[in-house]
């Protein structure tokens, strides 16, 4: 085949590839790249949506570094992520391991664990708000029955409100991550377990030597997704506590919503968003590098 015709084939293939990519790239450009660039630009302005943006350089960033409300929201976000991410991943793996075994009504249990993921988070949050209501909540009633009646609702106390929104965050997502782990577990060849069993290994040893290393791809993906979701937590907090009481559950995204929509400080809100973006980017890269080094293939 001549060089000319080879190039022509490459050219045609490249053109076809771009045509296939074009719709996706167009959507990415319109709904991801452009808003991202626009957010970065707005973070350098004083903008209230009603009048044109006014360039202020890095003023918003200087202000937010000294803003106690941003520090409070950052602390709350970190607390939420540090607790919810490992708990969700751990529970999802436990459920996956348990539900990978054969037992009666396994499909029903799998569905029950997964269902919260497909229900609207706003609906779940409203339901939990009722369940935790101090006067007519079912959970409150159960707690009363065992002598643990809260003096006031869990969502009304700063030290319990965060725990309540964390609970909803875990409950909502654990089923989704469980399905990912289940898919990973089912792709592990049976002969590896049989070989390990012939070597006289215990269940725990097989889990550590076979299951865990071969789930590293899923674990990396789930970790990145769970950590990102934790840092972006918004819906259930907005519905259940709106950041209260006394801003004890206000996370960075809730803060962005408040300063942007309520106070019309879109420039400042954009600056907080950019900081959050950088945080998530660093965290995702760190996770990628960490799990990349531990990837195992047999």
């Amino acid at each position: 085949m001549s060089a000319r015709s080879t190039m022509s084939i490459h050219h045609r293939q490249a053109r076809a590839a771009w045509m296939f990519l074009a719709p996706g790239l167009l959507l990415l450009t319109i709904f991801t790249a452009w808003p991202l660039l626009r957010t970065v630009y707005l973070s350098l302005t004083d903008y209230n949506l009603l009048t044109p943006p006014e360039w202020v350089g890095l003023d918003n960033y200087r202000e937010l570094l000294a803003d106690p409300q941003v520090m409070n929201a950052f602390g709350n976000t970190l607390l939420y992520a540090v607790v919810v991410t490992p708990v969700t991943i751990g529970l999802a793996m436990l459920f996956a391991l348990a539900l990978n075994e054969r037992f009666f009504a396994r499909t029903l249990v799998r569905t029950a664990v997964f269902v919260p993921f497909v229900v609207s988070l706003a609906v779940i949050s409203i339901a939990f708000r009722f369940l935790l209501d101090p006067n007519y909540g079912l959970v409150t009633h159960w707690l009363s029955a065992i002598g643990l009646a809260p003096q006031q609702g869990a969502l009304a106390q700063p030290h319990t409100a965060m725990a309540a929104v964390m609970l909803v965050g875990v409950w909502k997502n654990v089923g989704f991550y469980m399905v990912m782990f289940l898919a990973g577990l089912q792709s592990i060849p049976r002969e590896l377990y049989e070989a390990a069993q012939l070597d006289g290994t215990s269940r725990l040893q097989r889990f550590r030597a076979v299951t865990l290393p071969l789930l590293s791809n899923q674990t990396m993906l789930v970790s990145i997704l769970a950590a990102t979701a934790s840092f972006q937590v918004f819906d259930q907090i907005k519905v259940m506590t709106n950041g209260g009481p006394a801003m004890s559950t206000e996370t960075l995204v809730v803060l962005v919503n408040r300063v942007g929509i309520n106070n019309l400080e879109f420039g400042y809100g954009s600056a907080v968003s950019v900081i959050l973006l950088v945080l998530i980017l660093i965290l995702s890269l760190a996770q990628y590098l960490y799990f990349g080094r531990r990837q195992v293939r047999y």
Partner: protein
Amino acid sequence: MSRTTRATGAAVVALALAVGTAACGDGGGSTDGPVTLTFWHGLTGPDGPAFQQVVDEFNDSQDEITIETEVLPWDSLYQQFLTAATSDDGPDIVAMSGSRLAQYAEQGVLAPTDDFYADTTYMDTSVLADGAVQASMYDGVNYGVPLNLGPVLLYWNKALFAEAGLDPEAPPTTWEEFEGMLPALTVDENGDGSPEQYPLAVGDHSTVPVFPTFLWNGGGGVVSDDGTSSMLGDPATVDAAQYWVDLVREDRITPVGMSGADADQLFQSQLAALTLNGPWLTTGLTEAGLDYGVTRPFAGPDGDDILGDVVSMTISQRLDEAETDAAFTFFAYWESVESQTTWANETGFPAVRTDMPDGAVTNEWAAIFGAPEILDSVRPYLTGVPSSGEINDDIFTPALQSALNGTGEVADLFPPAGEQVQAILDDAS
């Protein structure tokens, strides 16, 4: 020029003329054509149909002006108005709370309504409740005309009063009397410190701002009436706040951390004997068959001011002369005796007029909420302050919630919160 070209040119000119004529006719402009105005409001409750009834009557009463209403929940209305205000597709008239109005007036998206009040071209505006008219003032200019006025009064459950051995027709009239009734109105059957029945149901967030009225009547406040000085750090404010925080924390007069909706539900479920709220609550309570009364809130040692929640009708700054005239014509119709009679009798809201003829208002709640001695004591909260939302939601409410939850002391929380409020006020000026 060919025949085809000339014909095309003529068609373009004709089309341009037609479009131009249509544009003038639609928008009012310099010609005297019918004017259609869009009106956004958030009257999603039982008050919505009553408002629409008056709008329909106005539209049917003449051919020159048509009001097209669009109802949105208040939160959505404020959010959507943000983007709509800068476009030509936005509403011509928007109803908004007096406490939100200054924020938009400051940005120049609202037009003044001073001409409506200037003379009697549209109506004699001196008959309108002064507190309602003042609620739309910002920086010496009026930007609205009152749509409704909702004084926040004391609701009491007569059946629970009787069960407690109290006179069901004698609600507390002072803080002292209220304090004296606490043992009778608190029911904690199992003694776990979490009462099954509370004396009072008051929300501390997402509600009409009741706690600021406690500060007023204790001699303090959040911001001075002229909107220039923070009062949160004043000794009188701290003392009044401490008094109510002690009642909540030590006497458990109300659950902590309730929203306005939670407080309404607690009272409606007969788990609280008293609550403070506006006239919008009467419809639900009456439908629920509650045996209740409504009266002036208990007075504090330094005052008996009543919170007045005012919704004003505002006009977009892009309205031309004819459209503004049409909007003012509708406003005058809304404030007429006939319209206010419909409004008051259908909703329980008081009439905004102070000269309603005897016998016109037959709704008992509207008569109570609209009594002259009530309207004379009405005081708006944070009106004319552009950063009112930030001051109330981001500074005052968190400080109050910290105190109510016992995570801090009033004396430690309120003065620094006051400094933050002052910084915002200084920035705005």
